[in-house]
């Protein structure tokens, strides 16, 4: 197992470096520079040149990339060119808001998606199976931003059950959770349908396998057979997808953060790209990519823990 984890970790590190380097070049290819935004029209060309030099933007792009990695190795993520605060502070201040949103969204989607998926497989072709199928496809098909806007319109603006903006009061966790409800639904609703369909398909496949028939033949209770034997295997592809889902949601959180005026790393990244605040862009991308890679790694490890064939390199049959 340790060998498996070490191998996957090394691969994850390489993926991370490749992704961040590619993004570095892409960001620097886009025209525009932060000095015009920071200094405004009143700044002289000399002031702008000095600021560019201070940010290292006057150096060749490969040197800039090298400087970025050397700073990273020293634990120095650089300075926000606008506020002159440490980028690590800026990014890690926003990260908890996005993580809370993503965890709430994916957690809620799993809680709402796995049981109906499981039930649909067990009661195949029943009315509830068909209803689940329709609902799942509907949830997948509706774009998340449309969900967000209608939630905002009906539950916040019309009914005023939930707040329309912000992340809640500092230190008041109940209030923060209340502010999290609508954005988390908006972000996670599509995943409810997706997870339900995935679990149903996996369950149907597993339910046909010999060990399930054997379990039933031995007279094990149906509930035990389904939860302990069928679902444990059927959940594997879902765990993998959830790992990818967390990564996708980290970037997808942007629309929820804008629509609901929430703080978060998506919003930070969006604003940083617009203003060409390169250090913040790079470090936000680094952190979100790292989480994406990490969540994939964790889902691989969970899969390996659940299915010994994976860690032995035999793969799923």
């Amino acid at each position, binding site marked *: 197992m340790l060998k498996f984890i070490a191998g996957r970790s090394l691969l994850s590190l390489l993926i991370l470096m490749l992704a961040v380097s590619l993004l570095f070049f892409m960001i620097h290819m886009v025209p525009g520079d932060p000095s015009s935004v920071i200094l405004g029209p*009143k700044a002289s060309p000399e002031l702008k040149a000095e600021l560019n030099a201070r940010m290292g933007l006057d150096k060749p792009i490969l040197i800039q990339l090298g400087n970025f990695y050397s700073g990273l190795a020293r634990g120095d993520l650089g300075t926000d060119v606008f506020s002159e605060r440490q980028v690590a502070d800026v990014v890690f201040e926003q990260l908890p808001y996005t993580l809370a949103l993503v965890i709430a969204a994916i957690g809620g989607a799993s809680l709402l998606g796995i049981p109906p998926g499981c039930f649909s497989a067990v009661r195949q072709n029943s009315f509830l199976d068909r209803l689940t199928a329709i609902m799942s496809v509907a949830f997948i098909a509706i774009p998340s931003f449309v969900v967000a*806007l209608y939630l905002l319109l009906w539950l916040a603006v019309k009914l005023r059950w939930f707040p329309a903006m912000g992340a809640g009061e500092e230190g008041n966790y109940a209030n923060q959770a209340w502010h999290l409800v609508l954005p988390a639904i908006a972000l996670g609703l599509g995943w409810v349908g997706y997870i339900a369909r995935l679990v149903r398909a996996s369950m149907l496949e597993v339910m046909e396998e010999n060990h399930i028939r054997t379990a039933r033949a031995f007279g094990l209770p149906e509930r035990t057979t389904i939860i302990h034997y069928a679902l444990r295997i059927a959940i594997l592809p879902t765990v993998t997808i959830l790992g990818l889902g967390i990564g996708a949601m980290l970037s997808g959180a942007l629309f929820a953060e804008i629509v609901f005026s929430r703080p978060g790393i998506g919003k930070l990244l969006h604003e940083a790209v617009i203003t060409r605040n390169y250090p913040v862009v790079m470090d936000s991308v680094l952190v979100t990519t790292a989480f994406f890679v990490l969540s994939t790694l964790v889902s691989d490890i969970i899969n390996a823990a659940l299915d010994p064939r994976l860690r032995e390199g035999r793969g799923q049959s």
Partner: protein
Amino acid sequence: MNNKNPTSSRREFLQHSTLAGLGLAGAGIPGISWAVRGDELHIRNYNEIVVLDPTFSISGAEGVIARAIYQNLLQIKNDGTWDTELDAAGYFEQLDDTHYAFRLKPGQIFNNGYGEMTADDVKFSFERMIDPDIKSINAPDMGPLSHVEVHGRYSGTIILHSPYGAFIAIGVAFGSGAIMSRKAVESVGGRFNIIPPCGSGPYFFKEWRAKRKPILERNPSWEGPEAAFSEIHIYPMTDAKSGEMAFEAGQLDCAEISVESVEPFETNPPPNSYLETHPGGRNFWLGMNMENPSLRDIRVRQAIQYGVDVEAILEAAWFGLAEPSTGPIPKGIVGHRPENLIPPEGDRDKARALLKEAGVELPLRLRLDVNSDALERTAVQVIQWSLKKIGVEIEIYAQDNNSFLNIGFEDKGDQWQDVQLFLQSFIGGPDPYYSIVWFISDQVGQWNWERFSNEEFDRLNALALATPDVAERDRMYQRMQDLMEESGAYRFITNGVMPYLVRKSIKPSFRPDGYPLLRGFHPAGRQG
């Protein structure tokens, strides 16, 4: 019941258009919104604050807060004009062209324990702006400031090297003239970014967290009339549509709204609310690169001036709410022209005749650069439509604002040579200098993308800046705008508009360019 109200369909239209607008969410029109919660005011600011140190502060979002927490010697009056009145100073007088005497009101306290404001703090604040070591980007606001002489604990004289007509409006009463405590600023190393070490205005800066609301609190040390609210909560929200939603949800009680939402809100405002529309201070114009081969002939540029129907642009992009502008200087500011040389509706026959006279082969194909904001995109589509009628075909290049802001800069490569037409906008200020200085010859290759260079214009700019005679300045600036228009390189469009939704429970206060003056906000029914 609302559902039986014949106007409910308009409300639905608004809500659905709001949804559509939010779907395209991006940077919105700058806006600010308010909500009263008991003794609190909850406001929406159109952007995140970045720097509250007056030496490096450039954004209007910061200015909204700065004017509430700092004092200047003079401040802009709360009467919808750019006139000034005493603020920290109990006495202020211009002694001659280069000397300004002041005496502070005694007993004005900097919070956080930094003691009483003295003339030495004024000296520190003004001289800090021009300190070459600090390299303040706002140093030009102080013009030819030489130094400040301190005569006593409260009194002193500000001395300029030469006359500077914009000194009171920009150097003293605007953002750069904020008085900081020497002791406080030095205690944080001579410079700060967001959290000010202290202030002396009616509110003080209580709390800040990135991407979350800064909170201002009533300053107990403030000697003037008590601040109207115990706290002001300021939410950075870049999207105007989100602000409208938050207003409708009751979380904000006043919001600058997008122009397309004015009509539906006017017809059917949210409960206990009303609409206020203020003329804006942002100058929108169509610029032409005079050095581009296709536009070198003045007759071609003039044809474009006459071909553009400004009234149609205002109807489509500003929903008929904004007025045509007569130049960069808006109404209410010295130098404002009463009318353009070319009528807003243009003259297509004259435009066609000019193109014919210039021997241009039609259709003439030109590119038009613009930033990708919805409002600007709509405006250039109307320009495209207008010019097609005279045989000029426009290809629109929409790009994000930061990319767009670089197209005319010589130090960004040779792309300035390809610039032909562009829709540009700048926010002005309380003095015409702010609106005009970008078009002088020295700015060619920087912000002067038209590459307009005129000796008389440059001379008048220098003279107008140096003369304190208001009538003379007015005449000079009007002439300068005539010169701009005569060059054919400019088609002035509008100064925009700033519409606000306001809850009836508060009485807001605005500058003449539509920006809020938080000091002037108070609960309705209470005298501000």
